[in-house]
């Protein structure tokens, strides 16, 4: 910084500190006497994750559940459905790692994700799952599309193996992201550790079902429709349950972005699922419209949960109040 301009640029930079003058208008001593968090500044840091992340939660869910649907379709000899599920899954499986790499502070170092395998880190575990699942489903999909070529026939065992692997990797891929955010110090995520993997699982099922149903002829898409409807119902039920059980910490779902996206999620999911359930069997158009609504609803759900984390970190009361309660229940002066 050698001139004022540079300084002003620097000052205006969002470099990790809340900054700015405290809004307090009385004596700073009075504030110091009564404050129960340091000038109201956050205690835990807001996540530094960009929008790529909730999008990944969504695509990852689709990829995971789609692999499962594809596998089940094969088992039930519904090859039309299987083929489409495989492609949808493969697309989602390709988008997912790209989104993750885009979000890194040092994208050129994405390979460092493979440096270790850490069971204490859902992200580490998830990265390996994504690697395996993505590799497998894309291999399978490629071979599926190239199947008309005779040369490829020799590779059928590889294809079957790839399909099997992607089939098995599906469920963990669809649910680990719930564990990932629950395994943080963000109150609204951490306290929801019993619901989030389930919620994300259900959401994955419904969005994958919806996506596949949209691209499959109604006569073959039955299971996908049922997955979309059932998943949506489960996701809605789990959302209500989670928000209710979280109580004080869950209040962030009644505020700001979390509330806005939450309402969209509930409305769109319900409407979409309803439409598919009532008309999907007969009308392709209804399935496409309903599917789109469900997909949108599930994306909004991920966004609602994502934003809730930021809001939960921004206001220190969500960190302080529950912890003081714990201390009180233990009947001790705080950690003396």
């Amino acid at each position, binding site marked *: 910084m050698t001139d004022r301009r540079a300084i002003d640029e620097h000052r205006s930079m969002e470099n990790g500190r809340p900054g700015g003058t405290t809004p307090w208008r009385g004596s700073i001593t009075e504030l110091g006497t009564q404050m129960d968090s340091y000038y109201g500044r956050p205690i835990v840091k807001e996540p530094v994750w960009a929008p790529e992340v909730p999008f990944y939660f969504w695509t990852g869910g689709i990829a995971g559940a789609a692999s499962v649907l594809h596998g089940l379709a094969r088992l039930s000899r519904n090859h039309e459905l299987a083929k489409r599920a495989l492609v949808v899954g493969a697309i989602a499986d390709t988008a997912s790692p790209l989104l993750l790499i885009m979000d890194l502070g040092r994208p050129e170092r994405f390979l460092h994700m493979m440096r270790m395998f*850490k069971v204490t880190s859902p992200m580490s575990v998830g990265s390996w799952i994504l690697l395996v699942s993505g590799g497998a489903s894309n291999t399978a999909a490629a071979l599926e599309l190239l199947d008309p070529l005779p040369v490829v026939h020799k590779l059928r065992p590889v294809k079957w193996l790839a399909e099997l692997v992607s089939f098995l990797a599906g469920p963990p891929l669809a649910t680990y992201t719930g564990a990932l955010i629950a395994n943080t110090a963000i109150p609204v995520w951490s306290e929801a550790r019993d619901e989030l993997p389930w919620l994300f699982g259900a959401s994955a099922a419904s969005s994958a079902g919806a996506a596949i149903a949209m691209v499959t002829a109604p006569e073959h898409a039955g299971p996908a429709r049922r997955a979309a409807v059932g998943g949506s119902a489960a996701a809605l039920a789990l959302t209500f349950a989670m928000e209710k059980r979280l109580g004080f910490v869950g209040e962030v779902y009644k505020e700001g972005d979390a509330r806005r996206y939450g309402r969209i999620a509930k409305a769109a999911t319900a409407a979409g699922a309803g439409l598919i359930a009532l008309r999907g069997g007969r009308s392709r158009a209804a399935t496409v419209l309903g599917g789109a609504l469900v997909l949108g609803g599930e994306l909004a759900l991920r966004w609602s949960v994502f934003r809730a984390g930021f809001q939960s970190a921004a206001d220190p009361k969500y960190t302080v109040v529950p912890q003081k309660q714990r201390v009180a229940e233990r009947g001790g002066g705080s950690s003396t």
Partner: protein
Amino acid sequence: MRLGEVLGSWPLVKQLREGDPLGLGKAAQSGASVRLQPRIASADTVAQSICPFCAVGCAQLAYVKDGKVIQVEGDPASPISRGRLCPKGAASKNMHDGPLREYKVKYRRPYGTHWEELELDQAMDMIADRIVETRNATWQETTEDGAPAHRTLGIGNLGGATLDNEENYLMKKLLTALGIVQVENQARI
């Protein structure tokens, strides 16, 4: 490098082979971290110095590498400071090589609207000329009432509290010999 070595240097493999299953400890340590050393260990010389701010007189050690100061910190041997420094003393290096430090002579001519460049030696000559001229023009041999004066009141000098004793000595000696008596600093306590 053979494949074995490559694999062997892969933390994932270390993790499993070297008893760090959780990968929280040594297995995660990078080569750079293993080799890490404090940069003062690489200093060519260490100069004993004294903090330039207040008059507590904290002892400093200045570590120098390739003709640059790479670190300044307290000297634990000092009976006064025991190696400790206040924020100003701790920022000595930041002051020494700060972004706004000036290294070139700047000249502003009478009624000029901007700085101009000037060679150091030329500046010294011009200053010497100014002093001689002004001294001649304002010399006072005696006061109005005939008392001895041997001085000029046309030139003044301000500063000293932040300078070395030796610098103050030469300043006082030269200016007194020139008959300049308005030699002052803010050490008025």
